[in-house]
């Protein structure tokens, strides 16, 4: 039993670290110096998750852990993969924040505490297998990120972004909660395994069996349950879609991204996405992805989600074309990236049924989601990091015009920005290419050629505005008299960017290997989710 507590290590490191940071910040005389310890905490959490990886390979151990924690959290490799992604994203953005906050005179210790707690919330959300846990994780990360968005207290834009993000985010959380409450009412369970199990059975009413009209009554109850379950599912998915900023729930994204201090933007772009997509994976594929139940829901939602995916890609990309601010362009492009990931979701359950329940194609789609999240994390942190490096106090690089001529003035910075932008655009040999390739391949394998085509066309649109960044930097000269971005000199950011670039290249050079890890991660995830309910009723149910 005690050894099972080790499974909590990544989350515990971040929580204890967060409290320690709070104390240190309260008692130290001058601000600053917390960036490196915070990053170390994140990397320690990543290392802990990595060390747990071999132990999470045993289905019996996983079932035992599932019982020990009352089915609140899963400790399978899906969780660990997402934990590593989240910790990596959080650690790298903290390193960027260290130099950024000092440069822009924003250095206050709360930033690091908030980011640490938010990362812990992300991990809780990514590992949650209970609706209560899912909600707490979601709110822990959201409250942290709202505060990070409004961190620049003297800037009206920052506060506006925070207000919009907060209001729409809370609204989304309320939708998700109402969906959760209805699911609880329909099944009597808050744990996902129990919900899946209960929905897999037809409604039974032993108390009235044999009485007159009992069969009709049960049939009515069944219809009610099915309809309410669908409503609940839509509400839960809408709440999560809000968090990942997919169309039509994307309104907050550009304003929050633009208003937030750039490292906070990078943070919410990568970690929140990873955590929310992880939760979506568990809810949509884990609970509603079963195509064999009597009232199978897996037939219904892909048809709806495909519109979200295609619209996210299309609207994200088309609006990104029209932006004059690079930060806003990255915001809309993140909506588009969310669309590509959703495309893999659409494919997963359909593929499962095609493959006859075993679902190797469905697994490859789920693995494509995980791989995409990792790839997006390293590429996006790099892009935002290069954007931070390109500006200094009073001369921030925000719009395309700020970047004009940067290639001539500061070739190294321009090269870094170009490299990460190319990875986001999906150019080989960077990892962005293979992330998209996996999505497209699983779409074709699952018999969705037109969805694959949509991803390809949208990637092509994306290339246009990503290349525009490079065209501005290398082929345009700044307008005479215009404010130009002046790169800051920061060895910390430079080192972070070199490390990130190394990861982008390593992932891009050995995609099969890392995709293999992602595949391993989803293979074992399916087992405990399906197996837990029958033999492991939650211990707190007495």
């Amino acid at each position, binding site marked *: 039993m005690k050894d099972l507590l080790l499974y909590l290590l990544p989350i515990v490191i971040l929580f204890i670290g967060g409290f320690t940071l709070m104390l240190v910040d309260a008692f130290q005389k001058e601000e600053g110096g917390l960036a490196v310890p915070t990053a170390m905490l994140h990397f320690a959490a990543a290392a802990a998750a990595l060390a747990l990886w071999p132990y999470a390979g045993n289905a019996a151990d996983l079932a035992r852990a599932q019982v020990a924690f009352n089915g609140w959290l899963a400790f399978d490799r899906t969780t660990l993969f997402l934990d590593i992604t989240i910790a990596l994203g959080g650690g790298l953005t903290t390193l960027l924040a260290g130099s950024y906050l000092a440069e822009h005179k924003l250095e206050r210790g709360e930033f690091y505490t908030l980011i640490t707690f938010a990362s812990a919330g992300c991990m809780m959300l990514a590992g949650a297998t209970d*609706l*209560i846990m899912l*909600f*707490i994780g979601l*709110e822990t990360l959201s*409250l942290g990120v*709202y*505060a990070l968005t*409004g961190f620049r*207290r*003297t*800037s*009206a*834009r920052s*506060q*506006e*972004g*925070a*207000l*919009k993000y*907060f*209001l729409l985010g*809370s*609204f989304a*959380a*309320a*939708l998700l*909660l*109402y969906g*959760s*409450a*209805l699911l*609880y*009412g329909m099944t*009597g*369970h*808050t744990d996902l395994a129990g919900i899946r199990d209960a929905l897999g059975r037809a409604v039974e009413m032993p108390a009235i069996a044999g009485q007159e009209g009992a069969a009709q009554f049960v049939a009515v109850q069944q219809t009610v349950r099915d309809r309410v379950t669908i409503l609940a599912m839509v509400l839960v998915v809408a709440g999560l879609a809000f968090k990942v900023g997919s169309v039509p729930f994307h309104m907050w994204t*550009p*304003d929050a991204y*633009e*208003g937030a201090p750039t490292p906070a933007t990078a943070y919410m772009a990568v970690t929140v996405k990873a955590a929310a997509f992880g939760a979506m994976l568990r809810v949509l594929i884990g609970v509603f992805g079963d195509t064999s139940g009597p009232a199978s829901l897996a037939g219904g939602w892909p048809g709806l989600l495909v519109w979200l995916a295609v619209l996210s890609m299309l609207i994200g990309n088309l609006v990104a074309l029209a*932006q*004059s601010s690079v930060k*806003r362009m990255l915001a809309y492009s993140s909506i588009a990236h969310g669309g590509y990931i959703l495309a893999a979701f659409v494919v997963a359950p359909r593929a499962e049924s095609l493959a006859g329940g075993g679902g190797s194609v469905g697994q490859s789609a789920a693995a494509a989601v995980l791989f995409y999240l990792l790839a997006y994390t390293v590429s996006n942190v790099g892009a935002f990091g290069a954007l931070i490096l390109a500006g200094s106090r009073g001369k921030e690089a925000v719009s395309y015009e700020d970047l004009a001529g940067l290639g001539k003035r500061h070739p190294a910075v321009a090269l870094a920005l170009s490299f990460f932008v190319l990875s986001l655009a999906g150019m080989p040999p960077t990892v962005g290419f293979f992330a998209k390739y996996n999505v497209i391949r699983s779409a074709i394998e699952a018999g969705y050629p037109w969805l694959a085509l949509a991803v390809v066309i949208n990637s092509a649109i994306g290339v246009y505005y990503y290349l525009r960044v490079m065209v501005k930097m290398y082929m345009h000269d700044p307008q005479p008299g215009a404010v130009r971005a002046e790169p800051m000199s920061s060895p910390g950011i430079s080192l972070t960017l070199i490390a990130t670039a190394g990861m982008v290249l390593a992932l891009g050079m050995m995609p099969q290997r890392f995709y293999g890890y992602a595949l391993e991660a989803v293979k074992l995830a399916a087992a405990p989710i399906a197996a837990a309910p029958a033999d492991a009723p*939650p211990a*707190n*149910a*007495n």
Partner: protein
Amino acid sequence: MTIQISHYLILSALLFSIGAAGFLVRRNSLVALMCIELMLNAVNLTLIAFNRWMPANAGGAVPHHGHVFAFFVIAVAAAEAALGLAIVLSLYRIRKVVRTDDANLMKE
């Protein structure tokens, strides 16, 4: 007439709809905050009504998941309201506005 589960559920659905409609229609950020609170409380009512209605399990006891969930919602709602008011106040200090329509610096 006896009060049944359905009455509670209809009431909570109404409260939730009023909250959601108010959030979408009203432009004052403080009213929007109140609407969110209304929605969260509608959720609490739903949870508790459902829990009351849950059949006992094999041991003869009724599981308390719904009650526990409601407590967590209450705690989180309080934290959320604190943060929300802080953000509204912070924006008011800079721009002297509380209406969401006036928060339009970033429209393009």
